[in-house]
């Protein structure tokens, strides 16, 4: 069997170069392991060194595993196989920088938690004092302009982390589960499990055939989170990122962030450490605290992602204040489509905590008819509310979005 053993690859030079090339790709963000590299060498051997195009295909087939990486691969291929020395120099130049950079990040993660452990909870009081400022901020900063920014979020305090975890632990409630077409063993006589019955009967040599039962297995449906990170939402971003991270430990979560454009941060959120995960998110998103284009980003989501992540009865959490300035028609249309392609659409709106909130903004009015529930989300209490909503503990209608619509 052709099992990646290429100790005798050519005269070694080409193999070395392929290894270097793989390193370049890895630095450029492709996820590829050593097995892929041996595959590549084997593929190039199999095809023989001939035409550039075939060489390209051999490398591409073995090193690229995601369509999104095509562009990076193309560029790397073009550069690398044109001038080898240049890239060699680049690697030499880049390596120390990259390692130093990573070291710095690693040290940073969890820093707050460590200092929390030392100085106990001061951070927490500090946060509470900050709250009133936030309220002024939140309403008037929706802007249509595209502002590209990277944000360095403050880290989560131990208390926040614990609270988020607590909120999550309530999440595992049976109401939120959907049936799958798989089965599990059951003591209740739901359906006969022929396979288990027969196997069990063998223990008695077939003298005693007692029926075994099975029932449909239930699982939590995946959660798809679309979170607004525009300027008007920036005060809440951190907390819900951490909420998402905690959620991801127990459930399948697909996370998307949007401001003026949509970014999928599902992979970034899979870091075990919450600080590292949030850090990775802020690295990969370019439009923190910029303007909002809800309609446009929803359109992107519907076109590129909805068919890929909304399977298996997904629940969508839309976290935004709904302050959209332009394109109300588009927003309405895309909301409608989103609503029709998921099992449940829950809108979390931080503005909702103000007494007497009314859907005056045009964006909010356009979105309201298309959501199943509208809930506040600005602190952990509200998070707990959300947990209840997800678990189906709250009567349908308590979060009915239509009650906020001014009587027309």
């Amino acid at each position, binding site marked *: *069997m*052709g099992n990646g053993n290429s100790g005798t690859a050519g005269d070694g030079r080409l193999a070395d170069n392929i290894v270097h090339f793989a390193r370049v790709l890895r630095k450029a963000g492709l*996820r590829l*392991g050593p*097995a*892929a590299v041996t*595959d590549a060498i*084997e*593929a190039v051997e*199999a*095809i023989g060194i001939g035409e550039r*195009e*075939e060489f*390209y*295909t*051999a490398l*591409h*087939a*073995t090193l*690229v*595993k*995601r*369509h999104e990486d*095509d562009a990076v691969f193309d560029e790397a291929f073009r550069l690398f196989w044109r001038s080898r020395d240049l890239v060699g120099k680049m690697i030499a130049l880049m390596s120390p920088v990259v390692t130093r950079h990573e070291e710095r990040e690693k040290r940073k993660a969890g820093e707050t938690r460590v200092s929390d452990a030392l100085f106990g909870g001061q951070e927490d009081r500090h946060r509470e004092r900050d709250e009133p400022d936030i309220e002024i901020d939140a309403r008037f900063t929706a802007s249509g302009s595209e502002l590209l920014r990277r944000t360095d979020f403050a880290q989560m305090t131990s208390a926040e982390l614990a609270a988020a975890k607590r909120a999550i632990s309530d999440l595992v409630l049976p109401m939120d589960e959907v049936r*799958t*077409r*798989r*089965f599990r063993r059951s003591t209740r006589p739901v359906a006969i499990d*022929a*396979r288990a*019955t*027969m196997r069990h*009967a*063998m223990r*008695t*040599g*077939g*003298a005693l*055939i007692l029926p075994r039962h099975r029932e449909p297995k239930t699982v939590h449906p995946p959660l798809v989170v679309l979170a607004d990170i525009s300027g008007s939402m920036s005060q809440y971003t951190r907390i819900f990122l951490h909420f998402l991270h905690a959620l991801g430990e127990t459930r399948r979560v697909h996370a998307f962030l949007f401001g003026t454009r949509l970014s999928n941060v599902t992979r970034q959120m899979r870091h075990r450490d919450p600080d590292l995960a949030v850090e990775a998110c802020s690295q990969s998103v370019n439009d923190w605290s910029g303007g909002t284009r809800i309609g446009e980003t929803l359109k992107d989501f*519907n*076109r590129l992602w909805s*068919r*890929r*992540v909304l*399977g*298996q009865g997904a629940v969508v959490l839309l976290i935004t204040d709904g302050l959209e300035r332009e394109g109300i028609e588009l927003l309405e249309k895309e909301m409608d*489509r989103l609503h029709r392609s998921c099992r449940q659409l829950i809108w979390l709106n931080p503005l909702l905590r103000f007494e007497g909130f009314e859907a005056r903004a045009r964006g909010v009015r356009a979105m309201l008819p298309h959501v199943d529930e509208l809930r506040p989300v600005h602190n952990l209490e509200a998070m707990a509310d959300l947990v209840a909503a997800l678990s189906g503990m709250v009567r349908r209608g308590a979060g009915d979005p239509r009650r906020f619509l001014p009587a027309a």
Partner: protein
Amino acid sequence: MLAAGNYLAGRSLATVLFLSLRMKRPLFLEGEAGVGKTEIAKVLASALDRPLIRLQCYEGLDISSAVYEWNYPAQMLEIRLAEASGTTDRGRIEADIFSERYLIRRPVLQALSSPDGRAPVFLIDELDRTDEAFEAFLLEVLSDFQVTVPELGTIRAAEPPIVIITTNRTREVHDALKRRCLYHWVDYPDAAQELEIIRRKVPGCNATLSQQVVAYVQRLRGLDLFKNPGVAETIDWATALTELDRMALDPETVSDTLGTLLKYQDDIARIEGAEGRKLLDDVKAGLAAAG
């Protein structure tokens, strides 16, 4: 080789196929719906003259419907017969009823056992429709080409099957699985290729019409549609127009037959209106200019 099976492959696809055969690695084909991924496996099977075993994936696909199942009624009968004849030797009954005779082979097991010594082409279609659990199970099958049936032991393929996996990207497939495969992104063909495909698949379609059809579809893909028409849709459309005895496209025909091409109401509504008419005019003008 592919051309013999009436399949038009670009150079890179041919190279990847060659590599996958040579390296005995599964080939992972990804691409939009309707670009002809499944067709590749079919053509490959007929070109290599091997049986094609197809595992259509769906949510909830489990071992008993993908790998093997015991024939329970027959086993039950066997036990009753043993009872009636007074056999009480437990070992014998067990060996008897868990033998190949009562084993129902499902696609995975079929693919691993090649009766005539020639490995089949094993198509795992739309892998993205299964859940993660099944995907994880496939890891063993695809790297070692073996499965374990507890009562029979491990069954290993004498010659590994030629594995083709397709996905439509409705879900991200785990890296661990992709790592075991050669990856190829199947794209829409260009105009010349698509024209050739129509020529082969819809022989009754006249030259003018097929040119217009292809040009129109290629233009449609450039628009910002919710779901672009695939090659399969192009073939459907050409067939439909041929059945209707049309010699050329006109606005009425287009809007009457749009359902073969576009599958979302939004898209249809958009193309039915002025935009579609303009598109058609552009296509005709372009073809006229080209000669």
